[in-house]
């Protein structure tokens, strides 16, 4: 579905004594996402999760390495086509507060090249899936946090992507809203969609992910199933297993 080969992203950082140093936020990471699987990207703050996801979603160009998408048997590395197949959602993808959700979806549909009929049909569908009838015509700045998050998700659904990239989609939401999102992700897998999913909530990851990738300082330190990791480290739950693994890397990680 989506393959990343030897991705590297180099940033320049100002240190205390005003010296400029270069560091790799993502350091030679290769990933292969298969159809219909949920892959969790876990790691402490500053590990490079967001940078990695941005490169996977073609929002950011890698310093070296490349992202390839397999689209109906054809391999492509064209940014436009990759973006066309991906639904990307993160804490940084804010919505236009002065527009209504319906206006926003119309614009998105237009950019994805959908016809007017397709757009209005799709909006009705999404409206039902996410239960947005009561606020779809309100300005987004007037919506509650949960409603805003649903509007955000509706934006990603518009063009029926084959792959979702979710960067901490449940951050700051109450239990009801976040469990609705978790269920939504699970449903989409049933529909054959792939999901790349980053979170700090280990329970969510344990419940959802077919496979997890743990990164630290820009490098992959674990790749495999949750069960496998628990066995390797000898812990009952992912939370403890994760902490032990990270602490081994020399990071003082406490929950």
């Amino acid at each position, binding site marked *: 579905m989506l393959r990343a080969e030897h991705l590297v992203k180099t*940033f*320049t*950082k*100002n240190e205390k004594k*005003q*010296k*400029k140093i270069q560091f790799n936020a993502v350091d030679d990471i290769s990933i292969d996402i298969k159809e219909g699987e949920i892959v969790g990207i876990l790691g402490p703050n500053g590990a490079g999760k967001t940078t990695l996801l*941005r490169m996977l*979603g073609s*929002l*950011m*160009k890698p310093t070296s390495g490349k992202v390839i998408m397999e689209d109906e048997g054809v391999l492509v590395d064209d*940014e*436009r*086509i990759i*973006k*066309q197949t*991906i639904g*990307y959602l*993160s804490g*940084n*993808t*804010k*919505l*236009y*507060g*002065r*527009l209504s959700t319906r*206006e926003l979806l119309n*614009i*998105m549909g*237009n*950019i*994805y*090249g959908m016809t007017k009929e397709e757009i209005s049909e799709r909006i009705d569908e999404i409206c039902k899936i996410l239960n947005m009838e009561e606020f779809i015509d309100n300005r987004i700045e007037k919506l509650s946090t949960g409603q805003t998050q649903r509007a955000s998700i509706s*934006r990603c659904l518009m063009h029926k992507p084959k792959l979702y990239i979710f960067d901490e989609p449940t951050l700051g939401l109450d239990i009801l809203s976040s469990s609705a999102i978790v269920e939504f992700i699970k449903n989409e897998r049933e529909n054959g969609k792939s999901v790349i999913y980053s979170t700090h909530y280990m329970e969510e990851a344990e419940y959802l992910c077919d496979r997890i990738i743990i990164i630290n300082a820009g490098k992959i330190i674990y790749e495999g199933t949750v069960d496998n990791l628990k066995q390797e480290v000898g812990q009952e739950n992912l939370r403890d297993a994760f902490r032990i693994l990270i602490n081994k890397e020399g990071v003082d990680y406490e929950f």
Partner: protein
Amino acid sequence: MNFRIVKTLYKKEILDVLRDKKTVIMMLIVPLILYPLMLIVGMQLMTSISTSMAEHNYIIAFDFEDEGGVLKSMFEGAQEEGYSLTVVEISDLDNALINEEIDVYVRKEIVEGKETFIVTYLSAVTNSSYATDLVIDVLKDYSLQLTVDIIEEANLDANQVLYPIDIAIEDRSSNEESAGSLMGTIVPFMLVVSLLMGTMYPAIDTTAGERERGTLETVLTLPVTNQEIFFSKFLAVATIGIVSAILNLVSMGGIGVYMFKLMQGMGMDGGVNMSQFVPAIIIGVMCVLAFAIFISAISMCVCVFAKSYKEANNYITPLTLVVMFASMISMIPNVSLSSNIALMPVANVCLLIRDLLAFKFEFGAISIVLISNILYGMLSVMFLGKIYNSEAILFSDGSTSVQIFERRSNMKKGGVPAFGDMWLVLAVTLLMMIYVGGLVQVDDMKRGVIATQLIVLLIPLLASIYTKKDLKKTFKLKLPKIKFVFGGVLIIIGAMLVGMILTGIAGTIFKNSATEMTESMNYIMGDNFLLALLLVALLPAICEEMMFRGFVFSTFSNKLSFGKAAIISGVIFGAYHMNLTQFFATSLLGIAICYVAYKSESLLPGIIMHFTNNMIATATIFYPDIVKKIAPVLMKESLYISDIIFILALGIIFVCLGLLVLNIGAKKVQKN
């Protein structure tokens, strides 16, 4: 660029900006409500003040004996238009004046044997100033009365003696022309300022505002390119700027019509036929549109660097001040649209509109203003496209192409200047040249030329030193092989010949600037050939080569292929000379020198080529007879097709010879 996407994004920007309260206030409330309201309130205020002044009773005192009360009766009899004067007797006049018990007092002194009335008043007190005018009028009448008495005592006709001739005036300007010249002083300023105000908020909102609200990353998840994002934003800002300028104009027009009707109602003559302004309005609109593109791109350029709304506001304030200052030029009488001012951004549009409203249509000036505004607009849009690198803006990558604002200790040593820095240096140099160089030039031509050249040399040099660039590499400081000098000189002679034809063709189109060019050259040089050679041949050869083949071309050729780099820096070199007639020829020369600089990796052949070109041009002006003997075809007044073909062929032969010298040499080097 996909235009469906640009259109969709454009619609979104417009919708988003229009729903912002600030834009609506700036666009609708200010022009449509605030302006008329201010005017009406202002007029009411003025009327009530002037009425109260006129209806006032002013108190006057004399510091002398008014024999027979002649003056007193003259003063108290002079009651017109509601005001009245009362003469009182007070002992301590200075105190009374300071305490405002009286408005004015009159003293009498003998100055040089003549009786002199001195009106003593307080200029800081409005009533006192107003009373002074009235008192002076009465005293003038008194003086006249005395004169008449003396003339009549001599049995002469006072009217004949005092006014042997009568003077009357007759205005042959049509009402349209007087109305136009009156509007011309204020309309350009209002138009430019309202255009700027109109673009300011959308410019901030779509750049820094979007960044602050975090919606840019959302757009980046869509299948769109950076170019599409920036271009749609630019279109939206320009549209809103233009619409708000139109609303401002409509509002001003409405006020104008209202005042006009008011004047007609008061019985004043003023039959203005609005249809006469149609051609002026059409040409004006074209120039204003080109200007709107320029001002939108410029304000966006400024805002792109800001991280927040607040920061963008701070960045745009200096721009507003500069533009407002420059647009006041139309209020200065006797500044005409010369071909130098026609190239000054902002000022040129203002003066053109003023001229158009006064029914002065000059094709040359109009085309220069139009073309230069389109050119500035295109350049600033290009610049905006270059700096609008979403990744750098959104994720603060650190690798921005503008390095000059970084902490100096963070700058990397070596290499050639960054792209953004180069554009910035070019823009600063151009502005400094126009404003500082231009100002010095007004004072003294020679010093102006030196100042301009020093600006061209020092700004890129200092910028390179400040950003710790490799000066040897940037400015190609290396001794070349001798073949490059010979080859270069041959090429430049060939390019000059071809350029002559280009200048000739351009000269017939833009007659205006062709004559001005020769005039200004004559003016600088005077009689001194050596000085002229130093000032217009050697100095520019060194300074301009450092800038264009050094700083600019090195930066371009670091990023682009040789062809693109040479053409772009050649065209910039042509545009820098700010003369439409010379533009094509100088661009060609620029490209030719780029080629030699590229081949030789040295600036020296270019300096010699540049000097050769300027020297020949200077010689044709100083010693036309000698040049005529050597190359008669160069000095012909008008050229036939056969001459043109001959010159072109000769030029091409020279260029080929030059290329041969360069390349034969190259082969020899390879063989060795």
